[in-house]
């Protein structure tokens, strides 16, 4: 076995595969670059206003932020299970897990709305100070991405009910899954940065 046959080479090449469509990965990278700029802007602006950022960060609800992390990670996990179900042609498990992932997203939005109403109810707005400007704009920008992710999951759910996904073709499901995981990945950086790090 000093030389590998073309067949094993082909097998090795086919294991190196990018899940979903190539286009979704370019879209994901573009989104992630936008968030990287936003995260850096927060961190470097904070460097000039450390006391103010530390003071107002204490008004944020860390428990709700952590709960939302749990919801997004669990929602992401359900979508991984949906993709795994597609590869073994378990149609019922595909739809069920997409629905559970969607519900986790709904839970995230509900928690965020509770958090926003407490802040807005206390008279806080974008113009209150630089910290709240960043807190509201960063979390709201992310909030919109959760909504888009849920719209994608809803489409995937309807498609899965029609039996579109399976071991023959899970490309659409994998593309949507990749976007949903990105929403999770961004929150994993956003939560410690805005709610905890001081």
């Amino acid at each position, binding site marked *: 076995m000093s030389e590998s046959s073309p067949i094993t080479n082909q097998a090795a090449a086919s294991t190196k595969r990018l899940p979903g469509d190539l286009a979704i990965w370019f879209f994901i990278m573009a989104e992630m670059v936008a968030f990287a700029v936003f995260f850096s802007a927060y961190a470097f602006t*904070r460097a000039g206003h450390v006391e103010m950022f530390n003071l107002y960060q204490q008004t944020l609800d860390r428990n709700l932020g952590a709960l939302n992390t749990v919801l997004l990670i669990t929602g992401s996990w359900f979508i*991984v299970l949906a993709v795994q179900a597609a590869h073994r042609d378990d149609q019922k498990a595909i739809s069920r897990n997409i629905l559970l992932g969607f519900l986790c997203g709904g839970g995230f939005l509900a928690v965020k709305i509770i958090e926003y109403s407490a802040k807005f109810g206390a008279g806080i707005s974008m113009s209150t100070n630089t910290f709240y400007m960043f807190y509201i704009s960063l979390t709201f920008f992310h909030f919109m991405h959760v909504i888009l992710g849920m719209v994608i999951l809803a489409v995937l759910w309807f498609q899965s009910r029609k039996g579109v996904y399976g071991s023959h073709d899970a490309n659409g499901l994998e593309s949507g*899954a990749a976007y949903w995981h990105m929403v*999770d990945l961004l929150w*994993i950086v956003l939560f410690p940065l805005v709610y905890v*790090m001081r």
Partner: protein
Amino acid sequence: MINILKNPAHRAWLVLMIATGMTWYLGEVGAAGTWAIVAMLAIAFVKGRLVILDFMELREAPMMWRVLLEGWLILVSSLILLAYWISLK
């Protein structure tokens, strides 16, 4: 239990939950300053990497995509660390 943890997705979920608890705890005890920042960034880095490799399934993907996403994580963590280091000076 051992069988359940054979699925990389389940393992990743478990580690992600524990790591989230750790970040929450650091907030509860009011951890601040250099070590706290480094610890939280390290936790976020491990979490992000698990999402990239086990949820996005890039562990077996072409190297370019792994480098792009993991590189993003390294870049973002480094920039945040730099900004906090400046603020501590």
